Every structure is written in structure tokens, then in C-alpha cells.
């Protein structure tokens, strides 16, 4: 393999139409998709020989812990930094995620996911950021393991991309925020606000909009057991609905 052949779906801004650009750059061993994009911006010349604007993309840690460089690579949504070129069929086709508004080229606006974290009360309530001379209550190693699974969610958007229920016709909040709502309610003091979190997920766009396609759990780059959280929240929401009905 002498060259790396790239086909990139580009877009100049949120309101302009998409178009394709193709590039060929010299092959190097150990290249990943981010290092290819970095090499490309040094000499942004497409296969037609035109010098074009370098491709715009988001990049952060380059070691798959920040979630920034998520895009669709050869049809699969994943982090560009941890996608090694040697594992890909050519031409390598890069597209922006489709469930978010495109900012430019491969960069999308994932703000709705962060807004969703506010909606589900994605934090533990504390009196303040100072020492009160006691720890939080103990957490069993088993609970720790479950919580740690979810606390690694980097809000990358892979689960949103593959979820058939996340689309312009639906209000579904998506798998990641449901997972986070579960996480905070499984903390010994976070559970004090479990009811509020459940209520946030009981209305339109909430847990009942999940269609149980289970794509989320299969795509998650951190293998977070998202469907477990969805099932538990679904069960708890049903119980909460009954409580709301009879205990008010």
C-alpha cells in the first residue's frame, strides 16, 4: 500500500449543502485517522490537484478518553484517533455524525447531549466544594464496578448516532443521558434525588421512547452497559408512576 485514499464528506457551514472531496496522501505505518487528517492539513491538495481549505474536525486527547474526534468512518461511528488506517478498507470514507447539526466538515454540534445532562440532574448534590471532614458513605466493590462502567461515558455521541429513536421526528433524549441518570441515582447520596431524575425521564422524549433496538450497547466505544441502565430506569419509572398515582 503506497497511498492512503480518503473520501471526505464536507460542508462549509450548518446551512450549506454537503459535497465530497477526495485526497491521496503517502502511506505511513501506524497512521490513525486523526494523524492522517493532521498530515492532510499540511498539504491540502485534493485528487483534482486543487488546493483547498484543510478539513475541519474536532480533536482532543488523541487517546480515546475525551470523545472529541467522533465521526463516521467507513460507515461506522467511532473515534478517529483510535481507528488505525491499517485496519480500514480503502478508500477511507469519512462523514460527520448525522444526528447532530453540522458546524463545518466533520465537526458537529453536540450541545444537545450536554443540555440533556442538565435535564436529568446529572450531578451529586453537595453542600459545597469544601471539606466537611467525612467521606461519602462506603460503596461496595460490586456497586463500584457498575458505577465506574457508566462514569466513563465521554459524551461522544456514538450511541445517539446509532439509535433509531434519536431523530428529527422524535424527542427521545437518547441512551447516554439515561445512563448518566441511572449512575447518579445509584450513588449513596445521589439517590436522594432519584425521584427528580425519574420524573425528568417520564415525560415526552423520556424512557418510554426507547424502542429497544439495543444498538447503543453494541456501538459504545467504552462498552458501557447502556441497555442495563435503560431497563432499570424503565422499571423504576413504572414504579414511580404508580407511587405518583397512589401516594400523592
Amino acid at each position, binding site marked *: 500500500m503506497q497511498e492512503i485514499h480518503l473520501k471526505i464528506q464536507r460542508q462549509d457551514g450548518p446551512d450549506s449543502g454537503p459535497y465530497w472531496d477526495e485526497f491521496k496522501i503517502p502511506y505511513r505505518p501506524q497512521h490513525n485517522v486523526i494523524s492522517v487528517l493532521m498530515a492532510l492539513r499540511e498539504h491540502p491538495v485534493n485528487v483534482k490537484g486543487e488546493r483547498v481549505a484543510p478539513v475541519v474536525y474536532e480533536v482532543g486527547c488523541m487517546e480515546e478518553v475525551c470523545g472529541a474526534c467522533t465521526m463516521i468512518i467507513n460507515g461506522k461511528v467511532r473515534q478517529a484517533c483510535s481507528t488505525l488506517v491499517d485496519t480500514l478498507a480503502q478508500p477511507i470514507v469519512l462523514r460527520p455524525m448525522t444526528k447532530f447539526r453540522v458546524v463545518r466538515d466533520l465537526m458537529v454540534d453536540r450541545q444537545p447531549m450536554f443540555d440533556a445532562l442538565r435535564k436529568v440532574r446529572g450531578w451529586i448534590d453537595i453542600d459545597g466544594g*469544601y471539606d466537611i471532614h467525612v467521606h461519602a458513605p462506603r460503596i461496595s466493590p460490586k456497586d463500584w464496578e457498575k458505577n465506574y462502567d457508566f462514569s466513563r461515558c465521554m459524551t461522544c455521541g456514538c450511541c445517539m448516532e446509532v439509535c433509531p429513536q434519536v431523530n428529527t421526528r422524535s424527542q427521545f433524549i437518547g441512551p447516554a443521558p439515561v445512563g448518566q441518570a441511572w449512575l447518579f441515582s445509584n450513588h449513596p447520596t445521589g439517590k436522594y434525588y432519584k425521584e427528580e431524575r425519574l420524573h425528568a425521564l417520564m415525560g415526552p422524549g423520556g424512557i418510554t421512547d426507547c424502542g429497544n433496538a439495543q444498538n447503543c450497547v453494541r456501538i459504545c466505544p467504552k462498552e458501557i452497559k447502556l441497555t442495563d441502565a435503560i431497563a432499570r430506569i424503565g422499571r423504576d419509572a413504572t414504579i414511580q408512576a404508580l407511587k405518583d398515582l397512589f401516594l400523592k
Partner: protein
Amino acid sequence: MAIKKPKIIVIGGGLGGLWATMRIAEAGNQVMLFSLFQVKRSHSACAQGGINACLDTKGQHDSVWQHVVDTIKGGAYLANQPPVKAMCEDAPGLIRTFDRMGVTWSRTPEGVMDLRLFGGVKNKRTCFAGATTGQQLLYTCDEQVRAHEERGLVKKYEFWEFLSLVKDGQGRCKGITALNLRTMEVEAFRADAVVIATGGLGLIYGKSTNSASCTGAAASRAYQQGAAFMNGEFIQFHPTGMPGDDKNRLMSEAARGEGGRIWVPRKQGDTSNPLTIPDDQRWYFLEEWYPAYGNTVPRDVAARAIWKVVRDMGMGIGGKDLVYLDLTHLSEEFLRRRLGGILEIYEKFAGDDPTKVPMKIFPAVHYSMGGIWVDWEKNETTGALKQPSPRNHQTSVPGLFSCGEADGTYHGANRLGANSLLSASYSGRVVGESVAAYVKGLKESVDTAPEDLYGNEKKRQESINKQIMSCSKGENPFLLHKELGDMMRDKVSIIRTNKQLDEALEKLKELKERASRMCLDDRHGWSNASLSYARQVQDMIVLGEDLPIPEGKFAGDPEFEAYRAKWKENNTKWLKTTLADHTPEGPKISYEDVDTSVLPVEEPRDYR
């Protein structure tokens, strides 16, 4: 009377910036939080191994005092000691606070926080959350700030880039200008106080273990507007980096802490399968040279030793810049449980399973001990810090504060592993409290500052952008950055000679001149990443001039007897903080005495 509704700007949303934001908001102030991206993607997420605090829960009689001593000595006595003492004393309380915020700390069988061993210490003192401690701490602070956002105390400006300070006639910081990274428009913002929490500067070296955002550009901008920069020569080379094309990924120090052994084949140039090389044909040089600490010597000692073995003795694997970091003698179950996520990174990027095959590593640029100079106020009774004090973490520009890796307070010449998450969090907390105290003492609100201060600075920034955007022939910022990085890695590396440093300064002068003629392939007025990059490269070069400090402190290497003999003599000359003040011709260097009132400088560092 105190001013009503002070406005405060925090720049940078990593651990330091988020802690600062929290504490400022908790005091009832309004915070505008600026970041190049969603703060949850900040570089703090990359810290893997842990955070140090003396919890003494492992039956080892660990003490806060020992943490103080290890940190001071680990930094070769070149950090002012009262802030170090304060940080170590406050560390356990900080950990408890994190615990209440819901950090998923790894647990012992009885459900309390577990501890692990790290380099440069003899006791287990490192709290950790699986293999992603930094990510867990960052996310927890991100969540707390989200709660403050919900309460209306914090407004985030994500995808905005800090460009410059706005200063009044007396030189006080009264706000900033920033670039909207979507519309590419410059705006000026008023603020009663500003905090720079923009992290490290690894990208000045091109490739490092840092995230793409760690350019040091923000620190450079503050420096160019009057904030003194300290100890720029102290760059930490992490001994166990995985060399790569786009970056040098990190193999956590936890790998050594959990029993990893560093070795090279005794036969020079040996390229045979490491698993077939018998034990007596392997040279465990750290264990041989430093029997007391072995593989867990501090990072600078390990990096210099690897450098010596590979570059001076030519003993790298197959003659290359590589040595083995070996975990294969430990059980797979143990390794997966203790180091799971860390090993996955190696597997993912190098393609080998480190539980089966020894890893190949080499030192990589990792952390800047130096940074923006900040003040501190000593508590004469305790010998630590007076808290709160508006002096703590205030830069040499009144009203401008700094914390985290961006400032240079806590680590002297070398940072101990797992002390960075501590200093980022701690200094963020302290700066938050300082800012709250500072604005309380202000007589005049920033609302009274004249409008033309802001208008003029905004125009100045717009004209810089316009010049870059309208250029038709000139330097490519991406290639110029590459040239800068290659030169820095070559000349300002683990072992430096004054000749190399002079050459580096010459080259930086040339690059600075060429960087004034940047030219972009991207002409778009929307989300133009090249424009932002070009400006960062310009400022990286200027800050780069603070790194090759000629002569002096850097030369010390505690592993040589000659150094020990001359140690006391050297101390009279080099027990100093290096200060750099910006001038158009380059940095003006001066030196300041180090406060050694906590631990007298009597014993050289010795890890043998």
C-alpha cells in the same frame, strides 16, 4: 463598600478552571467560563494513574509530612515550600470533597477508597479511580459546574478562544478579548477578575503526551501582556511514553507502581523476541542503579537513566530509541483489574497485548513544571498558606490569576506522579477563594471602566486576524509548528548543553520572524480552525523562548558523585526561581530566592 455583582472570567475548563469556577460561584459571584471546546473534553481527562493524598489506610504509617518532604525533594527543592506544605496538608480534605461529589474511586473489599504506589515515594498514597482517575475527577467537577449553571451562577462560553487581556491605565486586568470559534468574530468582555487555567504547553514540542489544545498560547498571551513566567526550563519528560506519529501516548506510571520492570537486552542491538531472552541476559538498569526505589524512582531520574542507556551507551532495543517496560511476570487477572484501561490504550495503538509481550517505551514531553508566576501569602503560624488571601495565585498583573499546569508553583524542577491532579484541583480551589476575596475588596466595579479600553483592544485583535486572513503568500502554520516541535525536541530535551540552548534561541528568533508572515489555505469566515491555529503557533514560539534557559540549574544530575560533592556549592548559586519578563527582543531573565522555610536544604535527592 464592596461592589455589587462582580463579574469574573475563568479561562480553561480543566480540573483547575472548574474548581475555580465552583468556588467563585459558591461565593455568590457570576462566572463566565471560557473554553476552546466543551469543558468535559479538557486534557485533565488524560491523567490516568491517580491523585496523591495521605490517607494512611494501608498500615504503612504514612504521614502528611512525608508527602511534603517527597514533593519538595522530588522537585529538587526548587518550589517555594509554604504552598507545597499547604497543598499536602489540604489534600486529604480535597479527596473527601471529591468523594462527596461522587468520584468513582476504586474500592477495597470493605468499600473504602483503595490506594496504590507511585514513583518517588515509599508508601501507598495515590487515590485512583480505575485507570481513568483524571477523567473521573474532571467529569465530577464538570457535573458540579453544570449544577451551578442550572442555578444561574455560571455561563459557559464554549468554542471561544481567549486572545488577550484588557488592562486599564494602572495596568490592572479588567477583562479579556476572545474569538468566537464559530463566527470568527472578536468580542471584548468586562471582568473584575480573570483566571487563566489553560493547562500545559506540550505542543511547543510538537509531539508530546498532551492533548491538541495544550499549546501554552493562552499563557503566552498573558506573558506578552506583562505576566511574569517562572521556571520555564523545567519540562517533565515522562519516562514511559509510546512513540507515535500524531502524539506520544502515555503509559501510566501506575504500570511501574504495580510492579512493571524496565530493561534492555544485555546484548547490544539485540532484536530477538524479548520473551526468549533469559533473565540473566536482561539488564534491569533502574533496579541496579537505584536499589532502594528500583523501578519507581521519580520521572526525571528514570527519564535520564533511559536517555543514558539508549543515547550514551547505545543499548536501546535494536539500537533504537526504545526500552522495554515489562509486566508479563504479573498475572493477567491482577493486571486487568489494576491497570485495565491503561493496558487497553497500549493494545489499541501499538497492537500488542502488554500482559503477554513487554511494551516498548521511550521518554516523552509530558508536563510543564514552570508556568505563569503567581504570588502567595504565607501563614507565619503554620508555615503554610494564609487562606483565603487575594494574593494567593495572583499573577504579576493585578486582577489576573492563574492555577493548574498554567502556573508554576508546586513542583519545582520535577513533579512527582499523581501530584498533578492534586495541584490542579488544589490550586483551582485556592484561586477560586482568592478571587472571591479579591473582588470583595474592590472599590470600583468594572462597569465604570472606559469603553475605549475594550474597543481599542478588540480592534487590535481584529487587525491581527485580518492580516493573517488577507495574506496571499507566506508561512504554512502547520508546517511551521512542525519545524518548531522538531527543533525543540532536538535542542531542548532531557540532556541539554548550553550550545544547544543557544542554537534553540537563534532558531526561535528566526521562527518568530517567519511566523509574522502566516498564510492560510482556509479563507472561510466560519469555523476557521486554521486561523486559530496560526495565532497559537505565533504565541507558542514566543513562549518557547522561555524554555531554553541558558546555564545553571538544569545541569544538575543527582546520580553523579561529582554532582553530590558540588551540591552545596551549587545551591548557593542555583537555589533560585527563574523569572522571565517579556520584551520584544526576547525574555528578560532574572532570579529570585526560593522560600525553604519548611524543609532545610541539607540532603541532596538520592533514590539509591
